[in-house]
């Protein structure tokens, strides 16, 4: 395509470097906006630094052997630890994973391998919607059934189920995305050998996407480990060691809440310490998944 150029105007070069008031104002606005935009990015980075800084500085003094091994001291007394809360968090995240991982992965497999048409679109949409649901509403739902109707006591199972509901949509969508990255010719090669579809998926597709699936699951676990609101309505919390699933159980986020509200300095120190532990666990998860996904694609 030929573009006819307008006749070059004399003084055009002059215009480009003009230093009249209008140009000066435009340049000032440009510089100011550059500053503002940079400032916005700085706020984002700065806020994280400030929050992490507080957690490390106030939390680190709380960490010692007793902190990780003992039961909480009665409120108001110094000493003790948060071992039951760590154990409880592990237990309930474990229960959540036992339910959430198979359901989430299964649904993800359906969406990636079979999902076409309206039903699949609905599932996809609802999974997205579920990730945005208020977690406290999930807690209210589980509590209304498992605590009020079935077990008649605050219990760890309900906590685990609530965490599972939070994990499922995250796992489903990650698994679907990862499986879609597995090259079609891997499936075709397997199917051409006469392998049934289900074996192809179980033995070829899933192993090929193993890294990505683990990433999705770990991400969901990290998210669940930090959830507080649903546990408050279901597992309630506990100051003592307990592994009974039908009874109230402690959890790290719940312990932070209890300690934060308590009017004692030692409790506050422990709240910061617990936060530090929680953030280290979640941060390690995040970093690992970041490294794993950086190796690109589906491995």
């Amino acid at each position, binding site marked *: 395509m030929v573009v006819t150029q307008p006749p070059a105007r004399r003084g055009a070069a002059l215009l480009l470097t003009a230093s009249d008031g209008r140009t000066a104002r435009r340049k000032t606005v440009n510089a100011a906006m550059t500053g503002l935009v940079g400032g916005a990015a700085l706020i984002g980075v700065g806020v994280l630094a400030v929050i992490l800084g507080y957690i490390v500085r106030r939390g680190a003094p709380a960490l010692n052997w007793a902190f990780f091994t003992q039961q909480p001291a009665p409120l108001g007394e110094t000493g003790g630890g948060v071992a039951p809360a760590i154990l409880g968090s592990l237990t309930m995240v474990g229960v959540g994973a036992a339910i959430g991982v198979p359901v989430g992965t299964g649904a993800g497999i359906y969406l990636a391998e079979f999902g076409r048409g309206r*039903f699949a679109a609905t599932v996809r949409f609802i999974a997205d919607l579920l990730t945005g649901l208020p977690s406290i509403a999930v807690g209210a739902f589980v509590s209304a059934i498992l605590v009020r109707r079935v077990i008649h006591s605050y219990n760890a199972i309900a906590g685990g189920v609530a965490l599972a509901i939070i994990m499922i949509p995250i796992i489903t969508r990650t698994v679907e995305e990862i499986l879609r990255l597995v090259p079609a010719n891997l499936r075709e090669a397997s199917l051409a050998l006469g392998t049934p579809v289900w074996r192809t998926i179980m033995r070829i597709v899933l192993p090929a996407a193993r890294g990505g699936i683990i990433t999705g699951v770990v991400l969901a676990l990290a998210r669940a480990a930090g959830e507080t*609101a649903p546990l408050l309505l279901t597992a309630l919390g506990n100051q003592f060691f307990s592994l009974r699933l039908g009874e109230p159980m402690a959890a790290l*986020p719940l312990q932070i809440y209890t300690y934060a509200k308590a009017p004692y300095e030692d409790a506050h120190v422990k709240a910061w310490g617990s936060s530090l532990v*929680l953030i280290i666990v979640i941060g390690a998860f995040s970093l690992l998944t970041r490294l794993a996904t950086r190796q690109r694609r589906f491995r």
Partner: protein
Amino acid sequence: MAISAAARERRRGDKHLLTGGQRRAIGDPLFRGLTIVFAGAIVALLAAVVLVLFNDSRAALGRYGLRLITGQVWNPQAETFGMLPYIFGTLYTSLIGLVLATPVAIGAALFIVEYAPGWLRGPISFIVELLAAIPSIIYGLWGFFVLGPFMRQFLERPMKAAFGDVPGLNQFVAGPAIGKDMLTAGVVLAIMILPTIMSVAREVINTVPDTQREGMLALGATKWETIRGAVLPYARGGIIGAAVLGLGRALGETMAVTLTIGNSSTKISPSLFTPGYTMASALANQFNEADSPIYFSSVVAVALVLLLVAGIVNLIARLIVARFGGDTRA
């Protein structure tokens, strides 16, 4: 090798082939069915949540009707339940968060896409997104012990001194500045939804074709004029979607708000210093204390309204973002 293997296969006879075929005939539909069940479980889950919450709030809905939502008095002892103050608190704090977070999030997204050198883009995105990985309760702890006192000392008292006597503005700073109020909760929410809005806005701005920018630059526009005239109009729809998505997140936020909002006044007031409730913080505070059936039913009704409001806002956000491009899973 291959031939001898094939021969071995043949020697095993038709029976083996037949079982292979049979296994597929059973295995494939079974497997497919199983995954459909799991996928269906997701749909059933949402339906169950809505139905159970609706069912358990029917007693309150039946007894109070619309007053349950429009009533301004929430008094469990008198069995009077009107959740308007909670709805107001939720909307007010979320709006504060949205107003504070959106410009910063768009700025940060613009910086990452338009200004930052290549090596800085990844790290900055990662750092801002890490904000999303911090659990709600930790924001609450930080807001309770650090931000709240800071706000009282360095923001709310000066605000009160500056606007306390200005007609019109003074109603926003009415009441004592205590640092555990709507404003503090709103600021915490702003920090929490910043990564959500930022990462969706970044995706959307990324999809703006370079030809748009080049056209403006070729006309002699400055960088900012390019962004204002070509990039932002093109990305506007998606950015609005990003903001609405952030709003959806703010509406349901519980622990951070519960620890910073004060939870003591059910007065509906425009004052930023109201130590009020949100629906979520009311649930966190009262769900376990609701001993009588009608109290419990009313509290569940709060959960239902929260679920519907947050669900509808999320729905709208996802529709907007889906239409204008970008990834909503932030």
